[in-house]
């Protein structure tokens, strides 16, 4: 099994604040990789580094064997052009905490947008695919609705469909259920569970310990910019080894 994501000593600072202090981890192909930890621990920042929404300051980050944001020639690193970064992002889907659907487009137009604009797919073909994807996330009847006419859970499912429309080989989830009413969380998790079963490689920043335990293949507990503990989610969540992990889990479980 090759690693889909590989981090070696990843550092990231915002000004004087060091958010990531050397992250080493490996996400295998086809696995559901959960990142948990208190807010401010750097888990979302790390996720955003994977598709180069944030630039890392030190270390190396690989996606599918290729360096993120740079090209290596000999022992020199060359920064990638914006267009090259965009090309790599096509293969990485991302789902945001605040959905970030395009409010001036209907659900189906949101899902069609990237295939048409980025891949040059015909509108008719893109529309058919978009409808199929919306059906997959259980929103076939909401295709013509604008995001403001959808509930949070429905918006997040459209956002997942939108990311899937690009046929990504890796999906990043940045606290996908944190902005949802408790009763809407289940629908979104169901879609994610479905996606996991289909073999998608997923990196999930989450506070849903139940999801991590049931669906997760690996789990990392981060605190203060470092990986404190990692392993099988069922082991880590039921029998944490570090005091910090124990303290965190005792509060959220």
């Amino acid at each position, binding site marked *: 099994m090759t690693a889909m994501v590989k981090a070696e000593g990843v550092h990231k600072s915002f000004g004087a604040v060091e958010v990531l202090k050397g992250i080493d981890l490996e996400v295998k192909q086809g696995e559901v990789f959960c990142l948990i930890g208190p807010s401010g621990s750097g888990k979302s920042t790390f996720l955003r580094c994977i*598709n180069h*929404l944030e630039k890392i300051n030190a270390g190396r980050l690989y996606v599918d064997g290729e360096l993120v944001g740079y090209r290596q020639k000999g022992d020199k690193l060359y920064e990638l052009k*914006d*267009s090259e970064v*965009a*090309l*790599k*992002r*096509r293969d*990485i*889907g*991302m789902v*945001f905490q*605040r959905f*970030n*659907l*395009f*409010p*001036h*487009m*209907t659900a189906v137009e949101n899902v069609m*947008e*990237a295939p048409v*604009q*980025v891949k040059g797919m015909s509108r008719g073909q893109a529309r058919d695919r978009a409808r199929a994807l919306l059906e997959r996330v259980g929103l076939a*009847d909401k295709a013509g*609705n*604008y*995001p*403001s*006419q959808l509930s949070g859970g429905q918006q997040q499912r459209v*956002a997942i469909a*939108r*990311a899937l429309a*690009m046929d990504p080989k890796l999906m990043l989830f940045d606290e996908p259920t944190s902005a949802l009413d408790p009763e809407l969380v289940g629908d979104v998790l169901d879609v994610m569970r479905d996606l996991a079963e289909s073999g998608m490689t997923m990196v999930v920043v989450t506070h849903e310990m139940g999801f991590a335990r049931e669906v997760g293949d690996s789990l990392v507990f981060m605190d203060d910019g470092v990986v404190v503990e990692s392993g099988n989610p069922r082991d880590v969540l039921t029998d944490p080894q570090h005091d910090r992990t124990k303290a965190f889990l005792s509060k959220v479980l």
Partner: protein
Amino acid sequence: MTVDIDKTAGGPAGTPPTPPEAIKAIPVRHYGRYVSAVVAIALLAAVVYAFSQGKINWGAIPDYFFDDRVLTGMGKTLLITVLAMLIGVVGGILLAVMRLSKNPVTSSIAWFYIWFFRGTPVLVQLVVWFNLGLVFEYINLGPFYRDEWSDFMTPFLTALLGLGLNEAAYMAEICRAGLLAVDEGQTEAAHALGMSHTKTLRRIVVPQAMRVIVPPTGNEVINMLKTTSLVSVVQYAELFRVAQDIGQTSGAPAEMLFLAAAWYLLLTSVFSVGQYYLERYYARGSSRSLPPTPMQKIRANLFSLSNRSSTTGGAA
């Protein structure tokens, strides 16, 4: 929109639910409003009376209102307004994007442009354009075009460039505010999908920025329509200049100024209506239902008057 709640009161089946008895109360009396209305009407009447008694030949205004020269002048005013605004809007968006660009060269150029064109009076700019022949004796575009500046820079072109380039500087600031008002998450989402910077701007950011840009732009259009009267100084025969000319030859100068004012007021009123519908268009998706158009409001009011019992539902 599919809603599960049945809003149709009194369907064919079942008994119509009896609505609760409406509150009957004596409304608050606003005596101050009556008094202020009377005062305002009295003042208006006094002003109208004063003007009617003045040495103004009011009869001359309707005589010339649809005069061919006036209509041609009005047409030119509209033409300059539309074309100068077109230059202004396109230039403004371009400058705003340049200004927000990561590239220090383009952002500096945009900054300098805005600094210069916003910092000098448009009247001065107009006259300078007209007289730029002092600097550039000839305009020479190689094999395509070559002419003396004074022949090249016609009153029309002076008016267009002078107003348009000045407007671009103002529109740039309006557009910049609009672009900054769009949530950063939108750009991130588009980038995460692999969209390029240009595509993200064109497809995602600018359409949403329009909602913020359109209202002040409508203001700018109305302003522009009135500012076109300045180009009379560079010999362009627009509405104001025509009115002045007719005034001098017909011996009714003041009357023709009132005529011009009436035309400007009429045109700005028409533009205001257009602005309302444009704002409505760009509001789509931002709120659950669009605000009704004036016609829809009137229709709804008529409907509610003729059929009080079943007003709600339907149009919503």
